[in-house]
């Protein structure tokens, strides 16, 4: 099933950027399939297209040519509004710099994606509590980001990413701003989400140690993938 119906499938994807009079090709007829339940680390030199790949997978950016399907659902033809609704229901984003709202508490930050659902306040509160429990921050619900360490803030960001129960988590350098110990904690949580909850994870990283937590590593170079399997 995973081979025929992968979580992510890119077919003949091309993406170019125009800078002044110069057009830079990032991907040219790129193909990729990521099975359901996979945990993929994407590595590569700066400018190789790692973040662009995440943007395309998350419906943040658009392809110039080709098709993108996530969970058998084509997203390359969706309008901005449709993409927003699709992201809310299907994708969880984790950023390098956490990107929490400074004026909101941890619980309120986690609750943000649920404002887009029809859940009642009580149901939202239950989900927020569950998500924060998964990342080990059930006792920090009322803390604001500035009152938490970087590792704790990233855990709140993970809780925010999973609270609406998306199938695909997209992580852009999730440990890039953390010390080793905090990074390991975050990566362990991602492994847990992948292993125990079956979330498909695509993680962009420069850190080989972080990549070791993934099931496999895709090396991106000049718009092409070079795959290397890791021991589980």
């Amino acid at each position: 099933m995973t081979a025929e119906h992968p979580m992510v499938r890119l077919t003949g994807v091309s993406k170019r950027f125009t800078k002044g009079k110069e057009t830079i090709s990032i991907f040219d007829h790129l193909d990729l399939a990521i099975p359901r339940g996979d945990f993929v680390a994407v590595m590569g030199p700066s400018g190789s297209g790692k973040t662009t790949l995440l943007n395309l997978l998350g419906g943040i950016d658009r392809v110039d040519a080709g098709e993108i399907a996530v969970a058998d659902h084509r997203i390359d033809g969706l309008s901005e509004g449709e993409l927003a609704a699709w992201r809310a229901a299907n994708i969880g984003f984790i950023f390098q710099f956490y990107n929490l709202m400074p004026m909101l508490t941890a619980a309120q930050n986690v609750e943000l994606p649920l404002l887009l659902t029809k859940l009642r306040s009580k149901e939202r509160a239950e989900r927020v509590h569950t998500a924060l429990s998964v990342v080990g921050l059930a006792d920090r619900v009322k803390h604001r980001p500035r009152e938490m360490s970087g590792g704790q803030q990233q855990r709140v960001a993970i809780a925010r990413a999973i609270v609406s129960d998306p199938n695909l988590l997209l992580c852009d350098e999730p440990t890039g701003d953390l010390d080793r110990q905090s990074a390991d904690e975050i990566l362990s949580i991602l492994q847990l989400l992948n292993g125990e909850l079956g979330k498909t994870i695509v993680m962009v990283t420069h850190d080989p140690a972080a990549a070791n937590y993934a099931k496999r590593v895709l090396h991106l170079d000049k718009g092409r993938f070079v795959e290397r399997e890791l021991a589980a």
Partner: protein
Amino acid sequence: MNDFDLVRKNLFRRKLRACLMIVSILIAFMIFGVLAGFYRAFTAGEDAAAADRMITVNKINFTQPMPIAYFNRVRAVEGVRQVTFANWFGGYYQDPKNFIMALAVEPNTYFDVYRSEFEVPLEQLQAFMRDRGSAVVGESLAQKWGWKIGDRIPLNSNIFSQKSGGHTWDLTIAGIIKGKAQHVDTNFLLFQYAYFDETRSFGKDTIGWMILQTTSPENNDRVAKTIDAMFANSTAETSTDTEKAFGKAFAAQFGNIALIVLLVVGAAFVTILMIVGNTMALSIRERTREIGVLKTLGFSGPRILTMVLGESVLLALLGGIPGLAIAALIAMALRNSLANVVPGFAVSPTIALQGLALMIALGLITGIIPALNAMRLKIATALGRG
């Protein structure tokens, strides 16, 4: 939490900045409330004017007298239902600074013409008509000075003198005039023209102006032309106009109140518009990355637009409503002391509603450009800007 909580928390993330903006908007709406209250008071006469009432004054200006003989000639004009007249007395009580709006009137006809505005109990009106040395006093004025029926008050004039040389007319209060509606001003005193004319030292047999009621507003133009033509080329030519036009012209003696209000309020609002608009734009620009994150989470462009507009409208309401409330308190505090100059000075419900509409407009105008920018913001650009 809901979208409103998010809007509120965003607005107050920089408390000092939010408070300063609120205070500046508060001051603008306080100015608006006070000036609009003044404007309303000045033009209240226009609003209260009856469509079938007209005023005839000396063509030179309304301070110049006309012969009382005009009264009976105007009564005979076809299309005129009733005519009365009045003479400005220039009154004050005890001290020249205690201005009293006192008019010498013909009582029989005066209360007929103004029967829809004022009422005096029949026995009091009859007492007033019987006693030429009596007066009827508006309820507001009576309350202000604590006057009651039977009191004898010395009314001074800063224009007229008695034949005996004095400037004081002693009048007995025969009745209290009540307004038939809440907005009717009763801050005046009426006494008998016959007594006034008989005792004054100059200007005998002249009157200040005539108030006439036509049989129908459709006859107004024809009646006015007939009256003014009747006295053309005389020593006292007349000018007849509707009561509303007369009230407007009277208010214009004090300057173009509407223009003054418009200029002051306009200047305040343009200033506030620029300050708040610039601050909102800055505030949204500071949050570019966060807006990108909200969009990444699935918040649509229109929803972001609504939230930013909500923030600017909330800001305008938080400043504007207390501003209007303070204006209302100022009006209440000054109402009595300004009763003679601008009776009815108040922040009315209409002004409050206009203010509310202005607040919403201010919020939408100051927020629209940042809101549109936020709505159109590309997520990749927003997140890359960080």
